[in-house]
């Protein structure tokens, strides 16, 4: 059940590399330089896909957690852990790039933008989720406990976003919204990069899931040896 055919992984890795290359061309050569912010606006072409796919990952954690409670099968628990890891990585990178962009464009390291604030809170939630996973909270019913956490964590997302939006509406906006409309070439670059990072996301998920499968095989073999030794 954990055997991910190496071919699928290889093909996906090649697709993601190709799309990344096309995406890079689109960013640096196809998309024009933005009028107000200049070259530094191009951080956006990394920042947006990273943020989007991190939210896909977090939704995936919730969906996999529901499947754990519904089917009781361990692959879903493993998948939830893998998605949480990659979600934390991607959202962390989205936060770093967002912060750098804010500093470059508006001379401030942090803006209380609702989307950025939501990403920060979700980063904390899922980083905590990963720590609790590694601390093996729940003992024998660990998988179910982790699944409940995964569901509860995602239920919080819309509430966090609404609260962040309400919070900022009280203070005058530190900066204008992320710039006016984008040129068509810019939208092309955005969509290519969203696809490229999506393929990268899929590759990382499959690769990590494969690794988790290997780890379970090792543990099963160890248990097999221990039982034989005791007999």
């Amino acid at each position, binding site marked *: 059940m954990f055997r991910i055919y190496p071919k699928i992984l290889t093909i996906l890795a090649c697709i993601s590399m190709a799309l990344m290359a096309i995406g890079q061309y689109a960013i640096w050569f196809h998309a024009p330089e933005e009028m107000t912010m200049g070259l530094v606006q191009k951080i956006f072409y990394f*920042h947006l896909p990273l943020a989007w796919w991190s939210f896909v990952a977090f939704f995936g954690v919730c969906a996999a957690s529901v499947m754990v409670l519904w089917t009781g099968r361990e692959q879903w628990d493993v998948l939830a852990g893998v998605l949480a890891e990659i979600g934390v990585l991607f959202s962390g990178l989205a936060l770093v790039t967002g912060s750098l962009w804010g500093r470059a464009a508006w001379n401030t390291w942090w803006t209380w933008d609702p989307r950025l604030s939501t990403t920060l809170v979700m980063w904390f939630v899922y980083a905590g989720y990963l720590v609790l996973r590694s601390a093996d909270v729940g003992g024998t019913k660990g998988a179910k406990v982790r699944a409940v956490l995964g569901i509860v964590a995602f239920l919080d997302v819309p509430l966090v976003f609404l609260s962040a939006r309400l919070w900022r509406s009280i203070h005058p906006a530190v900066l204008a919204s992320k710039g006016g409309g984008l040129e068509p070439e810019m939208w092309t670059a955005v969509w290519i990069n969203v696809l490229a990072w999506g393929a*990268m996301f899929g590759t990382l998920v499959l690769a990590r899931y494969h*690794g988790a499968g290997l780890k379970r095989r090792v543990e099963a073999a160890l248990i097999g040896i221990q039982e034989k030794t005791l007999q």
Partner: protein
Amino acid sequence: MNYLFIANVCIWLGVGGYVLFLARQHSVLERRVRQLEIIDGNE
């Protein structure tokens, strides 16, 4: 411009670092699996 460069570096370090972590984990695990399967087979 500097910030753009730093952002790029961060992203590729982050993703690259994770890929390296995966690769290392795989090779360690593959070696362990082979060792354990040999031991298991011998007993």
